[in-house]
């Protein structure tokens, strides 16, 4: 009935709020760096080992960063009553869900992408693989937000939500991690990563089509 006006208004408000609590919003990015620094401290600074681990490490860091922000994806809105307003008089909250996920991605996925060259350098990822890393992050982090959003919406009104959220999200993102890190590993070995990237893109597109439907259903059920 109302149209994109409400979705873009929601997006503006979300971004306004994110910038108002900038410290909190940048926490995932800081977390990314914690992981990137902690791993070499744990396994030793040997460049060969780090280079082999780099694709997986950057992706695990991206995942953890995304996970941190998932707690705040819907819960604050549930608690102050703004979430139920999405449904007032609306047949479909699809667009608002997409708007919310988009702002989540801007806060978690985009910073990871922007800082990935630095992380790649610190972990000694071969330079020729950097392009593939960035592409894999560009294609894959939206899927992270989509699937994370699904897990967050399912556990929205449960007690002890954060543990459950991590358990739920893990199986959902297994293919994502495999395809993405596989692509970067291939590139690091100077092989063609396009098969992996293609599968990754297909996975993201599938998530984009199906996840918002599940999210909308789960949100409404949790409002009861």
């Amino acid at each position, binding site marked *: *009935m*109302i149209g994109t*006006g*409400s979705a*873009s*208004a*929601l997006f*503006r*408000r979300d971004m*306004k*709020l994110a910038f*108002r*609590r900038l410290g909190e919003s940048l926490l995932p990015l800081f977390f990314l760096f914690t992981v990137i620094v902690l791993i070499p401290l744990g396994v030793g600074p040997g460049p060969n080992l780090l280079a082999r681990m780099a694709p997986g490490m950057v992706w695990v860091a991206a995942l953890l960063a995304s996970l941190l922000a998932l707690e705040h994806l819907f819960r604050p809105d549930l*608690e*102050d*009553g*703004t979430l*139920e*307003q999405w*449904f*007032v*008089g*609306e047949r479909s909250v699809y667009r608002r869900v997409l708007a919310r996920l988009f702002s989540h991605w801007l806060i978690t996925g985009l910073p990871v992408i922007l800082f990935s060259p630095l992380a790649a350098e610190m972990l000694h990822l071969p330079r020729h693989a950097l392009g593939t890393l960035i592409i894999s992050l560009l294609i894959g982090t939206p899927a992270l937000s989509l699937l994370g959003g699904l897990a967050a919406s399912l556990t929205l009104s449960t007690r002890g939500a954060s543990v459950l959220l991590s358990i739920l999200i893990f199986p959902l993102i297994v293919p994502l991690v495999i395809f993405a890190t596989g692509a970067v590993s291939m590139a690091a070995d100077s092989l063609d990563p396009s098969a992996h990237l293609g599968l990754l893109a297909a996975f993201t597109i599938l998530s984009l089509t199906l996840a918002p439907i599940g999210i909308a259903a789960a949100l*409404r059920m949790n*409002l*009861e």
Partner: protein
Amino acid sequence: MNRLLEAHQLEFHRYGNPVFQPLDIALQAGRAIVLTGPNGVGKTTLLRLLAGILAPVNGTLHHHAPASFVGHLPAVKGDLTCRENLDYERRVGPPGLDLAEALAQVGLAGLGSRPSRALSAGQKRRLGLARLLVRKTPVWLLDEPYASLDDAGCAGVDALINQHLSDGGGVVLATHQRHPRVAPELLDNIVLEAGIVDGGVEETQ
């Protein structure tokens, strides 16, 4: 006879049990429906069903005009100022009064730049009501609108409701204490009592 909202044989279950018997409700322009009954009987559930927040187990619901819902929670963001909160509502649309006018009508003039978390309970309630003014929505669904308000505030709510009714809008409101000071010929009453509903709303005339 302009029907703004219609519900047929509406049913809802909680913990597997029906909250009320199948309900028929029709809201007409210029009229108000008042839901009364003790705490916990299902007034809020019914309002949320009518708003579209809850999905009914059975029955149908039709909105013939845009609706606004003011529930227990203020539905404003604490980090944003009053103006910013209302600005968001206005953009959701369709746009109604402008921000300063809306704030003035609910008695929050001059508090536009205050972050809403700094407001008292009564002020938050007023801000929630201001949301109704910045959007042009014929259907108002109000859950305990008088809660946390002083006498002046309650009178203000009545004034808003009466203005809205004479503008051709409709109101469904739930209250367990104060009754709206509205002309009786414009009122329909539904009393919810421990799962039994006494009095439905038929179409009159």
